[in-house]
């Protein structure tokens, strides 16, 4: 083996090792690096009480209810396996709507409810023109 070939093998091995180390670290950090708890995470590992956390998932269809004071919103976050009721008082982001993603920042209550101090909208990776997304979305977008 010439010196050049030896170097080539060594450098490529180093590159592969670096990338593999990154991938291993990523999968090991999966829980710590998560941006939010999903409702089923909370059901599995218990309520993270007494500290600010984020709760993420989809806003369940038909679950958004506004209280009479005009600023309090109640809705249910679901990840398909479990649900969490959320209360939030304040201005919701434009993209906050049913069947769409949401990340709520706040605290869990001992009874399992989540009181949010801030809401972030999370949209998915599907982009399409209004006429494709159906009549309901079309009217909403045009009204804005």
């Amino acid at each position, binding site marked *: 083996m010439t010196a*050049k070939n030896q*170097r*080539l093998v060594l*450098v*490529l091995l*180093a*590159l592969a090792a*670096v*990338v593999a*180390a*990154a*991938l291993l670290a*990523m*999968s090991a*950090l*999966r829980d710590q*690096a*998560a*941006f*939010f708890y*999903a409702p089923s995470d909370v059901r599995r590992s218990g309520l993270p009480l007494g500290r600010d956390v984020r709760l*993420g998932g989809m806003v369940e269809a038909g679950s958004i209810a506004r209280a009479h004071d005009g600023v309090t919103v109640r809705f249910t976050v679901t990840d398909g396996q479990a649900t969490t009721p959320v209360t939030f008082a304040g201005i919701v*982001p*434009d*993209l*906050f709507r049913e069947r*769409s993603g949401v*990340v709520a920042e706040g605290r869990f209550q001992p009874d399992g409810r989540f009181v949010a101090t801030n*809401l*972030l*909208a*999370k*949209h*998915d*990776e*599907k*982009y*399409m*023109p*209004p*006429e*494709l*997304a159906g009549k309901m*979305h*079309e009217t909403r*977008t045009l009204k*804005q």
Partner: protein
Amino acid sequence: MPSLHALANPTRFLRIARPLTPLLVWAGIALVAIGTWAGLALTPPDYLQGDTVRIMYLHVPTAWLGMGGWSGIALSSVAYLVWRHPLANIAARAIAPAGATFAALCLISGSIWGRPTWGTWWQWDGRLTSMLLLFFVYCGYMALARADAERGGDGRVPAVFGIAGSALLPVIRYSVVWWNTLHQGQSIGLTGSTIDRSILWPLPITLVGFTLFFAGVVLMRMRALLGRIKTEARLRRMARA
């Protein structure tokens, strides 16, 4: 005769690079202009985000080139460490500021996109944080490569850093797949795209445009670096004479 070999190739490189530079830069600018106009005037808005979705035509190419730039640095570093070809070292150094600029543009355009859609300028989620780290790694690389060149190093230390830094590329790529993040998942994969064709079509135009422009800027900087090396060598010879 390694010295002859090193001298011959940069000369041939310069002969190709000189006419290629303006060609790449102007073709890139023209394509970016066409793609941006199409993206602003011809495509429909998104059903959910409305017109905000048009930031994509800038944001996706800058993200692609921010990561592509580091891939270039990593490949050049491999080539330099294995074949000790001086042009590879110069290519890696020339790519760094362009890649850093595009990584910064990606972060800025993403922040401007995030405010109206997510409701926040910045969140420490996996995708955003790993992209910010890549920007810092670019800055570290530039400082290291410069210090190495100024102190008469042979470029091997920055090349090792260039290979180590590629650990970030899979992290950025898979951050939205393996971790839950605020950033949405991958829209464009090898097999297809979840973006409707009517919205997607100007994106390849700006993507190719920015890439050509990027390549032109890299050639420009490589020529400048080669020129500086030549001047310094000549000054040293004159001082000795």
